[in-house]
């Protein structure tokens, strides 16, 4: 992790298309690649100069936080779902088009070894855990639970849940969590996904004394710790503060998160 993230323009090296509005953008930059660790993210955007933008009647918009999904051989992959204006601008990019990046940003997942590890992801929480898995797989026993709304929202893992039952087990992925923790004798849980999922997972993990690191989502303006827009409540009930997902996060010990304030 570097203390002074830079702003760069890097050409897209390749692009993959998945169903369900998901796509992967790859860049190749050895220097940046060396700086990343699992859990970190970049603020990225389809290139937007103020002046071109006015000419084409576009209003330049905020960068969007996107996790590192893969980092190998100098190539960094971003696994993205098209959900709104910012991600749809990214979705329009082709190989060779320019990406603007700030990062890597934020802290990263604590790395364990010799443990029984559970990865729990929901929807677009998948990418950071994928990067983490590759980094820790040689030193741990890993089981991966993933849930999504429907078939298009699930990706390679050990056990799949879908809300509509179109593939895997039917229901919320957290319904399967307790069984897996018990049966697989899980010691450490890493989670990333929608807030309600994280909230429930943290209750269950807490009940079973499982160490639990969670990567939080938040709307961001600056991404570098300046604006305090991305705050989440961290601490104990009588002594807590709003910490910044982009700076003190995105990874927090789930026991430190004041879920009741969210």
């Amino acid at each position, binding site marked *: 992790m570097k203390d*002074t*993230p*830079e*702003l760069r323009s890097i050409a897209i090296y390749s692009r993959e298309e998945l169903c369900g509005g998901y796509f992967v953008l790859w860049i190749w930059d050895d220097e940046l690649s060396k700086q990343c660790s699992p859990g970190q993210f970049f603020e990225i955007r389809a290139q*937007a100069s*103020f*002046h071109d933008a*006015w000419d084409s009647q576009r*209003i*330049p*918009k*905020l*960068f969007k936080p996107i996790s590192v999904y893969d980092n190998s051989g100098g190539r960094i992959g971003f696994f993205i779902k098209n959900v709104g*204006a*910012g991600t749809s601008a990214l979705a329009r990019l082709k190989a060779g088009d320019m990406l603007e990046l*700030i990062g890597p940003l934020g802290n990263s997942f604590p790395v364990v070894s010799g443990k029984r590890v559970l990865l729990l992801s929901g929807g677009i929480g998948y990418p950071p855990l994928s990067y983490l898995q590759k980094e820790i797989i040689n030193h741990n026993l890993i089981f991966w639970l993933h849930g999504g709304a429907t078939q298009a929202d699930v990706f390679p893992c050990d056990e799949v849940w879908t809300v509509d039952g179109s593939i895997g087990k039917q229901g919320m992925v957290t319904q399967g969590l307790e069984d897996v923790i018990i049966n697989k004798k899980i010691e450490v849980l890493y989670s990333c996904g929608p807030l309600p999922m994280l909230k429930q997972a943290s209750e269950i993990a807490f009940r079973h004394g499982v160490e639990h690191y969670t990567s939080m989502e*938040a*709307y*961001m*303006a*600056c991404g*570098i*710790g*300046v*604006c*305090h*827009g*991305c*705050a*989440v*409540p961290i601490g104990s009930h009588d002594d807590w*503060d*709003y910490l910044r997902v982009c700076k003190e996060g995105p990874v927090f010990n789930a026991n430190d998160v004041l879920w009741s*304030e*969210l």
Partner: protein
Amino acid sequence: MSIMTTKLGKLTLDSPITVASGTFDIENFHFINQKCLGAFVCKTITRYPKKGNPTPRLYESEAGLINSIGLQNPGLDLFVHENLPMLRDKLEVPLIVSFSGSSIAEFEEIMATLETQSGIAGYELNVSCPNVDNEGIAFGVDPEVIHQLCSRLCSITRREVIVKLTPNVTDITAIALAAEAGGADSIALINTVFGMAIDWKTGRSRIKKGIGGYSGIGIKPIALALTYKAANAVKIPITAMGGIYTWEDALEFFWAGASMVALGTANFIDPLSAAKLQEGLSAFLIEHRYSMRDIIGKCIL
């Protein structure tokens, strides 16, 4: 004296560009050379630490940003002991400290403490934050209160005193005149405009507190009108902000009467915007052999 030199009340600054409180901090100097700024304005501090507002606090609308930070800050004591020494150490441009209070006495208390500290060029009185209920903005809408606040504070300092006004008032000139009469050295405007956004699918407010503060390109025409009005009402100089992204935007505000411009939301959208503004503006001035004085307030109807 450089072509970009501007006068702001008691201060003579090397560049007419600064940053809007709450949108720029030391971290931003990773991207640009701080010398493109004439001064640095820090995030508003308050007497005691403030947790800030519940989340979500941000939403980007079609043409700007809605925020509801709620003045989250470490409070005066921590600011004096931790942030200020760091700023003194790292800053190569004058520091303006922005602060807010819930009473005139509290404003006084904060300033009295800051007066004991070196390395501060001036103060920005934030009487305009739309995101806290009892702080600031209640002051910013009442000319009499503004007048009293300025009189009291200006008498206890020799440093530049800037009053930052809210756009959410019927008559900005009355407030600007009250600040001037109270002894303020200059005025800054505008803080954010009350704004809101709702998720049309679910009816849920995008911002937890409902109404937030709207900034960015969408408020530029509003900020420009208020700058023009205020500049025609008072003699003290004005730092203008509100939707300024480019050097062309900045020029509009200089023509309208601003002596200085500040970048806020632009810093998020392009971390290089201050540097680009500095470059574009100085090229324009050189090309037309203008000094700042030839432009400031010279708007033609």
